[in-house]
């Protein structure tokens, strides 16, 4: 395609991408370099229903003048990125210098909020993604062999977890695994342990979140694989049958290689999605045991009375960098294949 035609076709989406993706990311990156102005405090006698005290408050008018002069705040460079709630470079140097052994280094680093969130995010991404691909593939193969009459209803029910809004889906499961809920009570009687609770221990909470993640995303993999299965060449399958390949051998040597590019596609999407895991942490009230990078951003913006925009922006940029690092191997492979073909 000549470059001119290509440009002609691409410009509307290019414009939309610049307006709605590139510019906001640019503005977030810019914000992450700034912190708020130094607050001018005044001390005065304040009175309320419970008596009078001498208290400090912010001199709002002086602050308004400062903000009018420099709306973005004070330039802080990469200071927010390296502070204790993000990459914590000083703290890590200190931990490495003062710890006795590797175990202590590890546990002390894992206590830093950013790394605590990162380790859960990575664990979630790398456990849920492969399981989603495998489970999605299995469901697709099974559904594909279901009699035609049942196919519609089976497909519909297999898709349900994906149709439910993540927050609602996680809340539904959260109530079901409550010790008074149907799953929670069943597990208790199954293991004969009235104190068993999936919400109580961090390990079980992680497992619950992983299970939820697989439950929620498997239908996506299933849909993609199912569509792919319809295009697997029948004659290759038939010749494999003539050669005496068993059902398993046909799946292993014909279907799987044929669907491999689809698996790459699903892996790509799932790595991106799972790295941004957020809703289940809210839905399962799991913040005590698991936090993710997206949760940190949410916390900076919503938990405090005054949002910390710089901190949230820095975490957002680090998340974007994380996604890029994660996708690099997959993208590189695609690039190589592309070059081989041309």
């Amino acid at each position: 395609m000549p470059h001119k035609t290509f440009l002609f076709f691409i410009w509307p989406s290019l414009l939309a991408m610049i307006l709605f993706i590139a510019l906001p990311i640019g503005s977030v990156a810019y914000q992450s370099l700034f912190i708020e102005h130094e607050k001018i405090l005044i001390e005065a006698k304040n009175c309320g229903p419970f008596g009078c005290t001498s208290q400090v408050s912010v001199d709002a008018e002086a602050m308004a003048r400062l903000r009018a002069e420099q709306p973005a705040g004070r330039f802080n460079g990469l200071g927010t990125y390296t502070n204790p709630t993000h990459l914590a470079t000083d703290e890590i140097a200190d931990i490495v210098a003062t710890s006795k052994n590797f175990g202590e280094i590890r546990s002390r680093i894992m206590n830093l909020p950013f790394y605590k969130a990162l380790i859960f995010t990575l664990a979630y991404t790398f456990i849920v993604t492969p399981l989603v691909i495998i489970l999605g593939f299995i469901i697709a193969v099974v559904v594909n062999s279901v009699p035609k009459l049942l196919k519609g209803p089976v497909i519909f029910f297999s898709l349900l977890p994906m149709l439910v809004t993540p927050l609602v889906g996680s809340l539904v499961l959260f109530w079901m695994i409550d010790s008074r809920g149907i799953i929670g009570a069943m597990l208790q009687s199954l293991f004969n342990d009235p104190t068993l609770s999936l919400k109580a221990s961090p390990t079980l909470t992680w497992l619950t979140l992983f299970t939820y993640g697989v439950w929620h995303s498997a239908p996506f993999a299933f849909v993609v694989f199912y569509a792919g299965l319809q295009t697997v060449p029948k004659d290759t399958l038939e010749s494999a049958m003539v050669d005496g390949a068993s059902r398993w051998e046909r799946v292993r040597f014909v279907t799987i290689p044929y669907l491999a590019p689809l698996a790459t596609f699903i892996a790509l999407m799932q790595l991106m999605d799972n790295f941004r895991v957020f809703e289940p942490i809210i839905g399962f009230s799991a913040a005590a045991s698991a936090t993710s990078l997206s949760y940190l951003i949410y916390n900076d913006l919503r938990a405090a009375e005054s949002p910390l925009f710089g901190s949230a922006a820095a975490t957002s940029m680090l998340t974007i960098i994380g996604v890029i690092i994660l996708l690099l191997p997959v993208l590189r492979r695609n690039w190589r294949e592309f070059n081989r073909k041309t």
Partner: protein
Amino acid sequence: MTFTLKASVAATALIASAGLASADCGIESGSVRILSNDFSALHAVNDWAQKCATDKVEVTKNETEEHKNIQVPALTTNPATYTVAVVATNSIVPLMNDNLIRPLDEYVAKWGQQLQDSQKVYVDGKIMAIAFMANAQHLFYRKDVLEENGIEVPKTYDEMFAAAEKLREAGVMQTPITSSYMPGWNLAAEFVNTYLGTGKDFFEPGTAKLAMDQDAAIKVLEAMKKMTEYMNQDWATYDANAQKPVWDAGEAALSINWGSRAGAYIAADNPSPEIAAGTAFAASPAIGGGNIPTAALWWDGFTIAKNISDEDAEASFRAMMNGISPEMMAENPDAAVWLIEGYQPTPAAVGVIADLQGGARPYPMLPYMGMLHTALGDNLAEFLQGKESAEQALSDVTAAYNTAAKEAGYLN
């Protein structure tokens, strides 16, 4: 589902109040737009403010738990989306920091004869808010259960643990205590309450420098950890909303909970009437040999936006005067501990009043308190789960607070 429920309740309230709209507040014209939190006492106030609506006076309301996140952007626009922001001790701070609310002295002089001096919230000599109710956490207990087992109403944390132990040993309840220990805002509120009971302060006076008393803070954390030992193992997922079902199911006999929720626990239409009948209230227990109730006192009040016309501001003030009128209180005596003149405490108010009389301390109305609250909410759970020491938890809190306070410009 809750949304449709809320919407239909709001709609019903709207229709009901429209029917009663004959009460003329004497406002000539103007637009009153109220933003508030979502609980029954505020519904009562807002409904009464809405009675001022006439052909020329528009009164609308938005009652939502998201009010804290909405208020700053909504009042920053000019004209502001809301003319009235109903706030509490903590949520007035961001509005003042950004200079979004106006002094009320002029309106108080003109239209505020019904107000008592204690209702006027002065900041730097100017009235910035009108308080109308007090709130605090206090002890909820099952009178019937305690009496059956020969237990006195606990006045200290040690007595509370002894009571819980006795109930557990007698096989009455395995997890007799319940409280909102969900990490985040709830857990931090519990820590702040208990720490205030030690009589110590959070900050160096006049600065944003964190200066928690280490020994007192550790004592508080240890008491909180002991609390969790008598709670349902899922305590880390229980917020304030999760308390009542547990209580109504008869699974707990001791609870530290909000005064504003007390009315519902003993209401005649409670789903478990026998439990409601056995529920009583007392001051928060004291800690560490002291006698201060471990509770922070809160007020709820209203503020008027700065970025609106003077006409709307005056109309808003007058409508809210009707909202917090003694007539409103006469209709809703149980809904809150009112600060309005002529208030007679009801059985639901016993706990908050006991806190007040016991000398409980107000929640600090400091510009940087919210950041400490967040830091506490994020960093105490691991200690309570037994994953780290109290010292480590406190040093994590300090690190998180210092980082946030530096970014917000309070510390260097």
